[in-house]
Every structure is written in structure tokens, then in C-alpha cells.
């Protein structure tokens, strides 16, 4: 498979301009990775709406859990997919139906055909990345844990969002 590459400016722009994210596969278990990501993105000022048929109707981090993207009663800008790669195509189809602008597949999640379909419909697709890690990397926060952000800058502020 071709290596994926997304320029920093593209990731930074998505994280700056997006406000409402539907997280497909959000877990209600506090020590699962999706829970970590949802909580972090909320702290950074994103509205994150959880989608998980097994937790339908429950309240997760202050938000109602929906069974599917189509059940969400408000517009969604970005769909963040916490699912195995083989489960991606129907989620992408739903994301197209509800008019999402961005599809973001989590670390280890990748489906090139589904991505091509979404891109052909005019959507932006990011695969095999975590928005939390990318936010932390580009804002410098990841470096607080000794992680190599690969960001070299002589500028003072790496702030992504103002909220």
C-alpha cells in the first residue's frame, strides 16, 4: 500500500475549522482509546457526538449516544471512525448521506476504496491518524510527554484553535 502523507497545514486547517464531530465507535468505557480521544477533543472546544448502537440513548461525556450517523438530529462536519477497516464502507456511505465534509479514520484504520469514493464526492479524507494525537503534535502538547512532534519552529505560538 502507498504510504499516507498529509501536510501539516492540511491537518491544522481541519482541526482549526471543524466544530462538530461524530465519533463512530465511541466507547462508554473510560479506559478505551475512543473515550480518551473524545474527552480530549471536547476539552479543545469540539462538539463530539458519539455513535455506538450498543449504547444508544446513553449519555457519554454529556452527549447523547446515537445508534447511527443518520439518527443524529443536527449537522455533522466531520466523521471520526473508530472501527475496524473492513467496517468502514457503510460508515462512509452514511457520512455521504448526512452531508459530512470530512472523513477521518483513526490510527490503523484505512480503506482506500471507501476513501476514493468519498473524495470523488468532494469530501476530505484522512486515514490512519488520530485527531487527538495530531492536535497534540501540532499544538506542541505531545512534546510535553517527550514525544517527537517533528515540528521545528521559531514562532512563539502553536495554538490551533481560539475558544
Amino acid at each position, binding site marked *: 500500500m502507498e504510504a499516507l502523507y498529509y501536510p501539516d497545514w492540511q491537518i491544522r486547517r481541519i482541526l482549526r475549522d471543524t466544530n462538530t464531530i461524530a465519533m463512530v465507535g465511541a466507547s462508554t468505557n473510560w479506559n478505551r482509546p475512543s473515550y480518551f480521544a473524545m474527552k*480530549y477533543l471536547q*476539552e479543545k472546544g469540539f462538539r463530539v457526538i458519539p455513535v455506538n448502537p450498543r449504547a444508544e440513548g446513553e449519555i457519554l461525556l454529556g452527549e447523547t449516544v446515537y445508534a447511527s450517523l443518520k439518527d443524529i438530529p443536527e449537522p455533522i462536519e466531520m466523521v471520526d471512525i473508530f472501527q475496524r477497516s473492513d467496517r468502514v464502507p457503510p460508515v462512509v456511505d452514511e457520512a455521504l448521506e448526512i452531508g459530512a465534509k470530512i472523513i477521518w479514520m483513526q490510527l490503523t484504520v484505512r480503506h482506500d476504496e471507501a476513501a476514493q469514493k468519498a473524495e470523488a464526492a468532494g469530501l476530505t479524507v484522512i486515514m490512519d491518524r488520530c485527531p487527538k494525537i495530531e492536535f497534540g503534535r501540532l499544538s*506542541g502538547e505531545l512534546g510535553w*510527554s*517527550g514525544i517527537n512532534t517533528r515540528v521545528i*519552529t521559531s*514562532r512563539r505560538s502553536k495554538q490551533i484553535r481560539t475558544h
Partner: protein
Amino acid sequence: MADDRKPAKPPGFETLAIHAGSAPDPSTGARNVPIYQSNSYVFDDVDHAASLFNLQTFGYIYTRIGNPTVSALEEKVAALENGRAGVATSTGHAAQMLAMYILMEPGANFISSTNLYGGSVTQFTHTFAKFGWNCKFVDPGEPENFRDAIDENTKAIFLELLANPGGVIVDLEPVADIAREAGIPLIVDNTTASPYLAQPFDWGADIIIHSMTKFLGGHGNAMGGIVVESGRFDWAQNDKFPSLTQPDPAYHGLTFYETFGDFGFSTKGRAVALRDLGPTLAPMNAYLILTGIETLPLRMERHVQNAQAVAEYLEAHPAVAWVSYAGLKSSPYRELAKKYLPKGPGSLFTFGLKGGYEAGTSLVESVELISHLANLGDTKTLIIHPASTTHRQLTEEQRIAAGAGPDVVRISVGLETIDDIIADLDQALDHAMAKAAE
């Protein structure tokens, strides 16, 4: 014109040494990394505190597990090694303990090269045994020795690439293949080469350890260690690493590898090993090492240049029996040096005098400019007789295996004017020869 479809050329080593991890301070604009001499960090509210303690958000809690000056250094060294993340420790020895704490269980073992700093041999043999961690030593000259020693309880292979006390280079690539086939990480101590001279991750290493006390800091003024992970090892490929792949009872059932992925090893090292073992690097020491690293490329170039000159001088001296420096034509490690250390095989090496033990001890007692002490990788030229000092706790057999036999003198060539270093050796060798003739 920049092309957005592929990654830009990564910054060069010199740029990384100065800038990686060292962006201006966001709150003050301070261009140099400040010394954050603070034990603790305020929480915004109870929920923020809980998120930090749960590792759900990035941030500082308590300097035992993270500090802004220390993390700038961790990111810088991780960048220089082209790794994913680093965890700094109070010393290089603490870095070894931290790495092994993550990998080992009571009753488990790891395989180590015999060619190590004597203090590491002692740590691995005696102190680790108290935790139930066993070390099996093998001669690294034949890479298959590592394979032969591996059993079902083996968790890692450990080696020094450019081995202390000097001159020996381990053929990394075949050992990395053996580790990969066994599903265990290869840990490389890169202290004596520094990331400027050698890049072990390029040859298949999975974890790199440094005593930053040495060339990284470079000025003999601060202790420090670091563990860097490549981010490429699959901890879930087998059931050998439960502390990364199973829910951790010391962290409310969190599974580190699943949650933190390619920096899961480092997160475990920080959140559990630093937290519970406590070998934290002091911010002041991190600051001194950060400052030192900015000139690492320049220093290493001159260290190597001076070492080559000293080695050639010694080899031609009538009182000298042998010189073990991989930059010499006489060295059996010359080819390995060209492969793994193309910019030069460091500035730490050994030599022996024809007068043996007596002449060696007389030499180290006769130097005037060169310092007789137990350290390496300083701006100053340092000399020591390992058999009576750094490798003293070893048996005679272990000392010879480690390259620290009775006649061995170790030198760490510094950055003084080369003529002055050689003049001091010259007078000290005269003195040693005169004493031997008495």
C-alpha cells in the same frame, strides 16, 4: 516550489540538535528553554486534574513524571535518534533499569553482550537478580551467540554498539535480525557513539539508551539518562510483554500499547516506571544537557579528529604494546566502523603498555593535563585504568571478556589543543617507562 503531495526534506542533524523540542516558550516567548524549577503544576479544575491523572489529556502534573525543561530534552534526543519518544532519567543506569522494568517479569531473562561498561555488567548480574531478572552474557563477536542463548523467557537483547571501554564495535544488523525473528526488542546503548556518529534505529534497533552524562551533555557537568523508542516494535505480536498488552492493575486496567500505540512503551515508562521507581532527571541537569546538545555535531567532529591523532601517536610509540581504536588500519573493527560509524568511531578507546599493569597505573598517575577520573565524553581528555576502577567489581575473566584486562588503559579524548594532549601523554609515557626501568 514546495510539493504538498510528499513530505518535505526533514531538517538536518545540526538543525535538530539546536531546534528540536526547543521551540520558544509559549507563555513568555523565551527563546531558550527555561529551567522550570517547579515540583508541581496547577489544575484548571477537578475534571482537568482527573483527565491528567487518567492520561486522557497531555499536561504536567508533578515533576517526578514530567517537567517542561526535561520534556524539551526528551523530544530533542528522540528527534536526534529519529525515534518516536523518549523518557529521561536521573542517570544512564536508571535508564537501563526503567527500560528493563517495562519488559521484564520475575523469572524472565535478557541476553547481553559481554562488551559493556563494567557498572552495567554488575547492575545486570547482581542488582537485577534481586528483581528476579536474569541476564545471560554472550560474546558479541559472533552474532549467532545471541540466537543460541534465547529461550522462551527471553524478553530482549542488549548491547553497546561502540562498546566501552573501547575499540570494539558490535555488528548490529545481524543481531537485529535475530531479535526480530525471536519477537523481542533489540536495545542498543548508543552512549559512546552519540546519535551524531551512529543511528542504531536505521539498523533495526528498537530501543536506544543513553547515558546523557557523556557526549550528549558533553561538559562533565550534569548526570542524565534517556530511553528512546523507535515506535516500530509490535508489542502485541506475541504474549511476551504483558505489561504493555494486558490491562495494567497499576493504572486502573489501562492497556498501554492499545491506548498509546507507537509511544505506548514510553508512556508506560513515564506513567508507571518513573512514577513508581522515581529516578527523575532534575530540570537543572536537563537544561545543562540541552545546552550541551546544541553543539554536539561540532564537538563530535573534533572528538573524532583528536582521537584519531592520539591513536596514531600511541600506535607509533615504543612503550605502547597495542592500541584498540577502530579508526586505525590495524583494527579488526575498521570495516564495521565504516558501516555503522561513517563519521568516525568515537573518541573513547583503549591501549596497553609493554610494561603491563605497573606501567598502566604509572601512566595514569603521571598525567598533568589529562584528568585521571571515572567518566567519558567530556570536553576534557580523561584517562583511567579500568581493571582497578570502572571494571573493578568484575572477575578477572569478566574483565578480559569486557576488554578491560590488567594492562588496559582507557582514554576519552577531549577537545583541548591536540598538540597539548599528545605532549602530556608523551611526558607521562616517558615517566611510566622510566619507572618500569627502575
